[in-house]
């Protein structure tokens, strides 16, 4: 305990990461019926947490070592689990991202959620999420990380199903929980195997384990692949993609915070957290690279057919997560982490802007919003365009820098296929992002003036009465837009900071990328930059040609290939497959058979025994009639039979 008070970093960590928990407890137990107070408690807690996180970031940047604090939590036989904090450059950065985005989103929610009947509950679960997520980030052991990883999933379940009276929302929450659970069971098994085979779940210890040569490569591959299952579930990688787009049933700020910026990035975070461990197994890295690539391409195609604002960003989140996984798996450690950082900023921005549109027009359909005059909402329209430019990798926005870094990492791979996939993904990303932007800016058939006037009126009306609320939503959006513009230029200082302490990381990432370094990459450095920019611009130009320019058909080239459109629209039939599997194999398969077995065979057998016992009793009871003549008759008969038997 004393150690905590002596060390300001630990003190800041403890305060910052525990306050949201207190806030949740207070809201649930005491202030449920006082929404204003609930939101104030929660926002205060997260603001303090964000300040603490920034303080820690500064401290870690200036110190030359990582901060670690461990305490024994539980022991059973030879299994000893410790809880603690491990603050190195990566976790301090992630902690800051989480705290700051959570802080902005909670302020934004003051406006977005105002008047909702579940206002207090919303802030309680947001606090639960902030607490779990921050503790997950700074966890010093894999088991502690897993515990908070599950709690983050719980918060996600609660928040997706926030409008629980809607069937689709509760269904989506359940789907998210169960699908991520599938991956988590793999993760859990990985932890069990590590506990048995290595015995030490400390994250720095795991990272230095491959170097010492105590573990065989086969064991590392198995453990890494199992842990990667967790990454697949949480970061919605192939084949567990489809829960994330469904998770958009939650309130928009929830989608911004959990299902794009932070929670779904937890998978990628874990990957980078134990990167040297992963990197020790080339097989696991190759599998991860393939899964990341497939995910990125599949999700991009799905985003090309939907008209739902949030769905587009959801698919794009999946594809960007796939890109981060690709980058890490190709040995681009810094590129992956950098893209995670910039993505957190611009994707939260995109969602929050969309939230303002949705709040204003009460629809998610980009065609309707465009028609009703979406472009007249100046602030969100500018900000969403900034976000889309960053997402498409247009310089000088933040996404450009991180995407270039990833392409460079892919370029270093021996096979050119990964680089081409990355470029193709960048092209698709730009195309579907600007398809959305042009739908908002230049709706088919122009703005419907009647609606527009009406909307203008009501908008003006709103601004008069809800001025404060509007700015609560607009200010976080503008801050994020500024961050998106600026963040890219910090690449070099960030690189120095992230790679500073990580000897093991540096070694692992050069080792993983070694295959391509030898031949100097697929294409040269300058050419790569040009290719990267032109992939993005090409996508934007195609989108302009089809949706933006005067007289454009506004259908998209995919509408000329109905089967392809249908395939993309049905999410490559992945949902249909899962549904089919669940229905035939589980519900009408095993469950049905086992239930019948219980009723018919086991219970039937037991009831049968009872029946025959009772029936036997009835039959034999005829013998106990108490009639003397009857008894005598039996006696004589038996005696006669016995004599007969003896004689013969």
């Amino acid at each position, binding site marked *: 305990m004393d150690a905590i008070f002596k060390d300001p970093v630990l003190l800041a960590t403890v305060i910052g990461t525990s306050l949201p928990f207190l806030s949740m407890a207070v809201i649930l137990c005491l202030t449920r019926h006082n929404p204003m107070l609930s939101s104030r408690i929660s926002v205060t807690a997260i603001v303090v947490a964000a300040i603490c996180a920034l303080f820690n970031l500064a401290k870690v940047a200036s110190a030359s070592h990582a901060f670690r604090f461990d305490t*024994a*939590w*539980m*022991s*059973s*036989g*030879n*299994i000893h689990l410790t809880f603690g904090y491990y603050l190195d450059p990566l976790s301090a950065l992630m902690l800051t991202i989480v705290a700051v985005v959570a802080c902005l989103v909670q302020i934004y929610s003051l406006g977005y959620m105002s008047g909702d009947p579940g206002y207090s509950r919303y802030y309680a679960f947001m606090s639960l999420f902030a607490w779990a997520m921050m503790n997950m980030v700074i966890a010093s052991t894999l*088991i502690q990380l*897993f*515990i*908070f990883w*599950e*709690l983050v999933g*719980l918060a996600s*379940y609660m928040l997706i*199903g926030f409008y*629980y*009276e809607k*069937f689709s929302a*509760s*269904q989506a*929450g*359940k789907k998210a*929980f*169960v699908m991520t*659970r*599938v991956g988590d*069971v793999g993760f*859990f*098994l990985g932890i*069990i*195997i590590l*506990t*048995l085979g290595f015995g030490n779940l400390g994250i720095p210890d795991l990272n230095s384990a491959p170097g010492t040569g105590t573990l065989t490569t086969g064991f590392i591959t198995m453990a890494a692949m199992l842990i990667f299952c967790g990454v697949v579930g949480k970061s919605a990688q192939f084949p567990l993609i489809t829960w994330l787009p469904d998770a958009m049933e939650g309130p928009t700020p929830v989608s911004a915070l959990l299902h794009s910026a932070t929670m779904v990035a937890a998978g990628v975070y874990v990957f980078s957290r134990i990167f040297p461990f992963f990197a020790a197994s080339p097989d696991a890295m190759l599998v991860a690279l393939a899964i990341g690539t497939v995910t990125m391409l599949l999700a991009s195609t799905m985003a090309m057919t939907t008209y739902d604002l949030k769905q587009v960003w959801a698919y794009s989140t999946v594809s960007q997560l796939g890109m981060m996984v690709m980058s890490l798996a190709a040995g681009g450690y810094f590129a992956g982490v950098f893209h995670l950082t910039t993505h957190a900023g611009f994707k939260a921005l995109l969602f929050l802007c969309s939230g303002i549109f949705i709040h204003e027009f009460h629809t998610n359909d980009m065609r309707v919003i465009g028609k009703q005059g979406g472009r007249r909402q100046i602030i969100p329209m500018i900000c969403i365009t900034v976000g889309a430019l960053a997402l498409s990798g247009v310089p000088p926005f933040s996404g450009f820098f991180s995407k270039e870094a990833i392409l460079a990492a892919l370029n270093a791979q021996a096979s050119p296929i990964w680089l081409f996939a990355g470029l193709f993904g960048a092209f698709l990303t730009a195309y579907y992002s600007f398809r959305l932007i042009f739908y908002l800016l230049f709706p088919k058939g122009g703005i419907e003036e009647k609606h527009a006037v009406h909307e203008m009126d009501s908008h003006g009306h709103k601004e008069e009465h809800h001025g404060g609320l509007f700015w609560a939503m607009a200010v976080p959006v503008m801050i994020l837009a500024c961050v998106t513009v600026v963040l890219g230029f910090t690449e070099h200082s960030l690189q120095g900071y992230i790679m500073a302490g990580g000897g093991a990381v540096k070694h692992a990432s050069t080792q993983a990328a070694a295959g391509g370094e030898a031949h100097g990459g697929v294409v040269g450095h300058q050419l790569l930059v040009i290719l990267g920019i032109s992939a993005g611009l090409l996508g934007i130009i195609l989108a302009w040609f089809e949706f933006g320019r005067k007289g454009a058909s506004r259908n998209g080239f995919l509408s000329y290939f109905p089967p392809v459109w249908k395939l993309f629209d049905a999410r490559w039939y992945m949902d249909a497959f899962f549904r089919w599997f669940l229905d035939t194999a*589980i*519900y009408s398969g*095993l*469950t*049905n058979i*086992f*239930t019948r077995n*219980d009723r018919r065979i*086991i*219970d039937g057998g*037991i009831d049968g025994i*009872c029946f025959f016992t009772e029936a036997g009793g009835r039959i034999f009871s005829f013998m106990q009639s108490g009639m003397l003549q009857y008894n005598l008759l039996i006696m004589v008969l038996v005696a006669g039979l016995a004599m007969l038997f003896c004689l013969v």
Partner: protein
Amino acid sequence: MTSMEMAGFPILTAILMSTVLGLFSILLIPPERTKLVKQVSMFWATVGLILTLWLYFNFDHNKGGLQFVERVLWVKSLGIYWFHGVDGINMPMLLLTAVVLFTGVWTMWELEYRAKEFFALMFLLVAGVYGMFLSMDLFWMFVWYDVSLFPMYPLISIWGGTRKEYGAMKLTLYLLAGSALILPAIIYAWVQGGAVTFDLFELQRIGFSLYDQKILFVMLYLGFGILAAVWPFHTWSPVGHVAAPTAVSMIHAGVLMKLGAYGILRIGMTLCPQGLGYWSDLMALLACIGIVYGALVGLAQTDLKYVIGYSSVSHMGIVGLGLATMTVSGINGAVFQMFAHGVMTALFFSSVGYIYDKTHTKVIPELGGMSKTMPIASAFFIIAALAGIGVPLMASFWAELLVFIAAVQVFPVGGIFALVGLIISALFMLRVVQRTFYGEKNEKFAHLPDVSPFLAVPRIILIGVILFFGFFPKVMLDVIQSAVIPFVGSF
């Protein structure tokens, strides 16, 4: 050990007597004074809880071994002893019993129909449970075990619900069939031990041949296993749960089923470690089947209590799997799971009981949208469901973690197969939560009141216990370990 050993105040006998005295003082009250009956019940349940808590805090887990021993020779010619003691294995069980009795009596505060008989029978049942957990003498263990079984029949058939006569009869017959295996096993052990003592630890010292151990263990395993709802002897349990009134379900699923697992551990594994070694594959197989099977059948149920009943089958499978591993972590986890599951199911039945009392239905499709009508009662159930899924920082998470670590180590295939059960259990719990509590407000029940603060207290206590041991598993595991490590060492 001498024939007389008493260290000061006989606290364990006092705990046992708190229920016996409770029983007799309830019998003395005129039946129409139901309020007084409940107050007296509450008083004796509180006495039991305070004594047990005192015991828990004074139990020295660094010392380990059997503590607070009371040992008096009772029948010399047969070697029967009045022999009580606590160690790390029965300490959590005592705490569980005390908590569930206390909250169970409080939950039944609104009972008016034949309250006197109800509480009297409930105290008789719990007296048997305490006796079984405390005794270290085979004769008394069997006596207390049967004492705890018989009150179930009237409790279910008089105060019960759905198909109560059928459920009561089925349960009683099943459990008596189990007794019919246990009694010969105990006599066999007594004879093979020289026909001089029923003292469990003296019999352990005498030891049995491998042949005897094989026979003894399988008899004890099946006999007690029926009560622990081991697959395929589990069907009495959901039916019984459904038929039983709330507090009885709480005690039944929360505590009584643990008697079965405790019997396997305390008698079977203590006397026949090699017998367990011989049968452990079978035990693990049945346990793994139970885990997955219980969860799968739970998916198809439409009655809330059936769902909980099948989840119990699944969770008790985890206990069986932990025991079968014969490792420190496995048995630690199994005992912890017995405790965690007991508290969790008590909370489950307690919250379903409230909903059933008000709506008079526990059929899931007829409910729906209960979160709008009874937000607090629903929250209790949802918390219990989350504990059932094994969400971290709830007590059962740690238990499952330990059991699965041990299981993957000892039975890799079975352990991984059972892990699949975790996915299914998440699916079926969330399915129930979604259909019962989410959705549009159900106008039929819109006028019904939510849990009053007074009736919320017992449920909050149960939640508090789940969370406390979820945050601080060390408090419980240190106690359990103090017995399990030497126990496993003796194999």
